């Protein structure tokens, strides 16, 4: 760590938020590794995407605001972007997985699910 000390209103919430973020990230990745089929495994990384990223960004916002001496809010950009992009990724990936599962069973099937 560097020499400058952080005030107490940063370190106490920051410590709690970082520990929560680390535990949530670890639980999410264990879910990705241990669950059985793909549709259960989708639920693991969403925990990393919400709790892990959100808590880490709030802690980073606290630290940079305390260092600059004024409120710094540009970490909200990443929060906004991740909260917009993660559901799009999940929906597209689920559509692809459903299409591939159907196409394995029946030969002629179109991507919107109706078998031709």
């Amino acid at each position, binding site marked *: *760590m560097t020499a400058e000390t*952080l005030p107490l209103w940063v370190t106490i919430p920051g410590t709690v938020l970082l520990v929560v973020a680390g535990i949530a990230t670890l639980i999410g990745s264990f879910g990705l590794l241990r669950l059985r089929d793909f549709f259960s495994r989708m639920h693991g990384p969403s925990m990393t995407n919400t709790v892990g990223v959100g808590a880490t960004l709030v802690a980073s916002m606290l630290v940079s605001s305390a260092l600059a001496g004024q409120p710094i809010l540009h970490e909200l950009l990443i929060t906004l972007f991740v909260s917009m992009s993660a559901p799009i990724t999940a929906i*597209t990936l689920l559509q692809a997985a459903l299409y591939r599962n159907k196409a394995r069973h029946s030969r002629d099937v179109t991507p919107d699910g109706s078998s031709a």
Partner: protein
Amino acid sequence: MNEVFGYAVWFAQICAGLAMLNATIRLFIGPAAQDRILALDSVYTNGMLMLLLLGVRSRSPAYFDIALLIALFGFVGSVSLAKFLLRGEVVEP
């Protein structure tokens, strides 16, 4: 209290590293292609988390831009790979 905060940053970094290791194992053993895409997306997210935590630890604002770029490229890569699985091509005519 500053030492405790430093230990918390270390703990979160170790957790992000272990999560990245788990996602890499899933990336290698994943039975289907969609499992590998999901694992790659998870690796991207954990890399972004590690860069943010590095920025907290070294107290420099330079890592924030790299984390934003990693989030952007991870989203584009995952969506285009999933689109390729769905349609067989990324950009449709």
